[in-house]
């Protein structure tokens, strides 16, 4: 920040307008007052920025929460939306928040898959590891197969005809 005292009266006046500070002419007797007001305004405008970033991240957290629910049902779409999110400017911290929210989210929205709670952060790009998805698929298909086998007397054969 450049020294305010080295700026011209005109510059001070322009800065006062920039910060929306009500003022009169910048003359010798008012200079000190306006410099003080500018310093306060500059300090004030710097402070809230990290806080507003934090609120943004909180929103990010909520948003990722919502976005995460839907993609849970559709397999590949979830990957695409996640990569879109990662492409945003705020790279590092949202990832942290995202994994936290996704961790929470997985435990909430997929109670049928308790195994996923253990390994969401270990996977590099996927939330649910591929081997787990295949395993679940195999188990479900095996169950369905067993059901079909036991239905023989009632007859899927009959249905085919």
């Amino acid at each position, binding site marked *: 920040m450049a020294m305010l005292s080295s700026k011209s009266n005109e510059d001070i006046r322009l800065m006062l307008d920039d910060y929306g500070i*009500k*003022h*009169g*002419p910048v*003359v010798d*007797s*008012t200079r*000190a*007052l306006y410099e*003080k*007001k500018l310093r306060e305004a500059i300090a004030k405008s710097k402070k809230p920025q990290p806080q507003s970033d934090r609120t943004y991240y909180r929103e990010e957290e909520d948003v990722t929460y919502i976005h995460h629910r839907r993609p849970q049902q559709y397999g590949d779409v979830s990957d695409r939306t996640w990569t879109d999110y990662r492409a945003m400017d705020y790279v590092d911290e949202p990832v942290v928040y995202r994994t936290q929210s996704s961790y929470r989210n997985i435990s909430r929205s997929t109670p049928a898959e308790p195994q996923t709670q253990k390994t969401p952060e270990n996977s590099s790009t996927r939330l649910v590891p591929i081997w787990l998805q295949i395993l679940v698929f195999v188990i479900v298909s095996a169950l369905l197969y067993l059901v079909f086998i036991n239905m023989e007397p009632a007859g899927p054969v009959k249905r085919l005809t």
Partner: protein
Amino acid sequence: MSSTSQKHKDFVAEPMGEKSVMALAGIGEVLGKRLEEKGFDKAYVVLGQFLVLRKDEELFREWLKDTCGANTKQQGDCYSCLREWCDSFL
């Protein structure tokens, strides 16, 4: 703010002419001395500052506080004194 002091009434009753800064309402010996040290030795010089600050209450109060350390009441008394004087004579 509703009741004005005798000092206030005396000041706003006539043109200030060459009155000392201590003639202003809210400005006693201590504050008057501090203002004089800063170059504001006459009431009309403070009036000049009041006008340059566009007769804005907030700015004037802040300036008075910074310049001579006036408290809230003193700021208010001086401001309303000058404002009323301006209403009549400016």
